[in-house]
């Protein structure tokens, strides 16, 4: 067997990894880079975890695979948002593609993999609470089997603990950083236990795993990780927290080593991230900006909810008859334009949609200056067709923003300045992630130009000597392969990926509900994302 292991590090960036390699914290990663191929891995237009990992495993862009964010509208015209699930994924994954050629696949801790696809192999999805992980893992019984066979296996430590994550992330500041770090050290240790066990006892030709502790630590502890932010004279607390962060990464490095051993000498390991990371110092209260510029009106009776710190925003905080544009949730940096008839009885005249959208885009790009720095806050504004081009672009917000410092805006009401500076930088997503390939078939020392998430799936199939579906949107990263690997394994494009069978979001039979309100319960509980206040 010549397996491929996708070793996913959510949010990994060379900014941090190179520094840790230099300091001797991640020697095996250093070895992988020296002996293998390396390059920047560009995320999607909106570098966000669910659409990004979905692009990686499908070889399709968000407008084609249908995952636009952590949340999906219940229908294209609805403002009711629900948590994205595997049923929203409209493109075939590499797991089932390899199955069609007689190869088995294993998928561990990928977001938007619940309910699990019934592949030949196994799936233990990410972002599922422990109570439901048995139900939503495949095959049925795998969790019971792991509990029986794997010493020290702890389902509760493995699964997403929304209560714990909310506790840590609901405030502006992390109250107990060490507890947060240890939670993710243990959590990722549990995932690695499963990976190693599966590699040894249930081998598959393609295995993927995501360690999302990287993202979680970087969101809340960026100043302790970014070498550019290291204080000239770090205090004891800083050193203690930083050292614990490094313990996390040291563990990841050892997981790499053990993965290579367990996968065997004929394996190829690809280290990938869905996006990178950077620091954000700007705070942009988008709904307050929209209010000040005449697009949004507040309902006075919602004022208390609207201003309470940590409270998620209700759509019914807006006076909808007087509102033409608003932001529902911060993780997608998206603005929705209310169009009469499309979204209900309120909103702008449909004939005005293009001009309103164009004008709003222009104002965002020209009229958002940080008064403290004099800098423009917004680097880009994309329409849904631009950011999510494809048959499912109608699921995306009307406009998607890229802040100049890559931050996520706040949807909270702020009656002071809509644009402010944060007292301390927070970690935020950046488009530039990481790609490192090592092992069988990989050219030593290859340094490749930036590649895209779209390129990973065809490259994996190429490595497995399988045909590349004709509807894949990326390219094979040929330059990472050795010459003697390249020639006998030349692939050509074949048939398209197979249509996904489950019910599509927004299908004609879907509810005609046009009420522009949302499920604040679910969204409030999902403050764990770290994008929400």
């Amino acid at each position, binding site marked *: 067997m010549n397996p491929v292991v996708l070793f996913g590090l959510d949010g990994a960036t060379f900014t941090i990894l190179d520094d840790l390699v230099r300091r001797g914290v991640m020697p095996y990663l250093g070895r992988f880079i020296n002996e293998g191929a390396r390059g920047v891995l560009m995320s999607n237009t909106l570098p966000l975890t669910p659409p990004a990992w979905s692009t990686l495993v499908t070889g399709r862009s968000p407008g084609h695979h249908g995952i636009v964010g952590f949340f999906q509208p219940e229908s294209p015209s609805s403002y*009711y948002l629900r948590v994205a*699930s595997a049923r929203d994924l409209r493109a075939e994954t590499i797991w089932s593609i390899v199955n069609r050629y007689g190869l088995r696949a294993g998928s561990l801790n990928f977001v938007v993999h619940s309910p699990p696809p019934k592949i030949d192999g196994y799936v233990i999805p990410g972002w599922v609470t422990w109570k*439901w992980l048995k*139900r*939503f893992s495949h095959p049925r019984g795998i969790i019971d089997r792991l509990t029986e066979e794997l010493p020290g296996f702890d389902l509760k430590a493995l699964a997403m603990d929304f209560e714990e994550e909310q506790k840590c992330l609901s405030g502006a500041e992390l109250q107990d950083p060490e507890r947060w770090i240890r939670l993710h050290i243990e959590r990722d240790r549990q995932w690695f236990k499963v990976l190693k066990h599966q590699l040894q006892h249930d081998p598959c030709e393609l295995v993927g795993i995501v360690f999302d502790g990287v993202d979680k630590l970087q969101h809340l502890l960026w100043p302790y990780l970014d070498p550019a932010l290291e204080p000239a004279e770090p205090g004891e607390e800083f050193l203690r927290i930083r050292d614990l962060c490094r313990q996390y990464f040291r563990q990841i490095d050892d997981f790499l080593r053990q993965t290579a051993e367990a996968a065997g000498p004929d394996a190829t390991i690809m280290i990938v991230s869905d996006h990178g990371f950077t620091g954000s110092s700007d705070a942009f209260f988008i709904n307050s900006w929209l209010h000040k510029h005449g697009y949004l009106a507040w309902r006075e009776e919602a004022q208390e909810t609207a201003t309470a710190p940590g409270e998620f925003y209700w759509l019914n905080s807006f006076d909808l008859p007087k509102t033409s544009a608003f932001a529902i949730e911060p993780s997608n940096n998206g603005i929705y334009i209310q169009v009469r008839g499309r979204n209900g009885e309120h909103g702008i005249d449909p004939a005005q949609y293009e001009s309103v959208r164009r004008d709003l885009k222009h104002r965002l790009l020209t009229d958002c200056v940080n008064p403290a720095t004099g800098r423009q806050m917004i680097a880009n504004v994309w329409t849904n067709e631009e950011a999510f081009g494809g048959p499912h672009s109608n699921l995306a917000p009307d406009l998607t923003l890229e802040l100049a410092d890559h931050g996520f805006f706040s949807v909270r009401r702020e009656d002071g300045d809509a644009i402010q500076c944060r007292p301390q930088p927070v970690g935020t997503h950046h488009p530039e992630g990481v790609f490192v390939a090592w092992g069988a078939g990989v050219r030593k020392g290859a340094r490749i130009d930036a590649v895209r998430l779209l390129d990973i799936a065809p490259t994996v199939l190429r490595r497995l000597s399988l045909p590349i579906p004709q509807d894949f949107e990326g390219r094979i990263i040929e330059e990472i392969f050795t010459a003697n690997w390249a020639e006998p394994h030349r692939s050509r494009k074949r048939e398209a990926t197979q249509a996904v069978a489950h*019910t599509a979001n927004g299908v004609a039979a879907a509810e005609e509900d046009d009420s522009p*309100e949302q*499920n604040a319960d*679910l969204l409030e509980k999902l403050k764990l994302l770290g994008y929400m206040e």
Partner: protein
Amino acid sequence: MPVPTRQAVLDEVLRTLREIRDDLDYDREISENTGFFRELGFESIDVVALGSALEEHFDRQLPFAEFLTRARELKVDDLTVGDLVSFLVANLAPMETKQ
């Protein structure tokens, strides 16, 4: 396929809840009157997961977000199994069930 009976839908909801029964801190019989939040100790994310399981079984996307939002707007004391069953029956027409 005909619209499922209320009893058939209730049976499926109870069957799904039995799958996680061992992990619920609730030792009484679950009935239509059982409350998800106060008695079964559900959090909102558990309702999301239950909804996902039911969508998978009935092979239908169901407007759970709207359902939960409206329940909150009405300031209901607790969502019961019976409330969920009523919602499902109202939204499952027609239906194809998985075996």
